[in-house]
């Protein structure tokens, strides 16, 4: 997948655990793992919004395009 979710970087910056993040965003830890591992195929705007709100960042900080 050419789109990478830079979730681990943002979590590390804020020293936030996956469990805490999942709870604050309202996702299952399994889905957070899917996002972190780059296996996600699609993300709702509402999910993206919740992640940005919890992390205090922009969508561009979370999503990155890389050449295959």
């Amino acid at each position, binding site marked *: 997948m050419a789109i990478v979710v830079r979730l681990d970087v943002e979590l590390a910056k804020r020293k936030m655990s996956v469990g805490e993040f999942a709870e604050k965003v309202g*996702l299952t830890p399994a*889905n957070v793992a*899917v*996002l972190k591992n780059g296996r*996600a*195929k*699609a*993300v*709702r705007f509402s*999910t993206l919004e919740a992640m940005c709100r919890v992390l205090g960042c922009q969508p561009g900080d979370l999503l990155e395009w890389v050449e295959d």
Partner: protein
Amino acid sequence: MVTGHRVVLPLRLFLVLLFGVLVVFQVLSLPGQFAHMARENPDLAHLRWPATAVTVFWLLCVQVVIVAIWRLLTLVKRDRIFSEASLVWVDVIVGAIAAAWLALAGVFLFVGFSAHDPGLPLVLFLLLIGVTVLGLLMLVMRALLRQATTLRTDMDAVI
């Protein structure tokens, strides 16, 4: 979706009822009817067992469809109707309709060539058209189910 779930139980009751009536027809009414007709018309007595076999087979096809509908309703209740599992049972329904159609077409041709008055061939022709429409309709529904399953699978991958 809620209305759909409420219909499942009465539908199942009537499916059981229909299945039971069909069994009565299969084991009692139809064999008795054709035995009676063979006694009334001795010149047509040779048709007794083929006619019994074909009509019992048609009812068997309907019973297969009933069982398949029952399984599909189970999937509806579990909210798993838009999955690969339901396509198997839709295929069973299509197969049963196709088998009944082939037998009906054979009987229609046989009766059509040997009948002296147009009554029975016309009724069989009507039935043949009806079963054809039903079968083609099931193929359209099958395609719709496949589309919905693909959409559901895509939506499930969205986080």
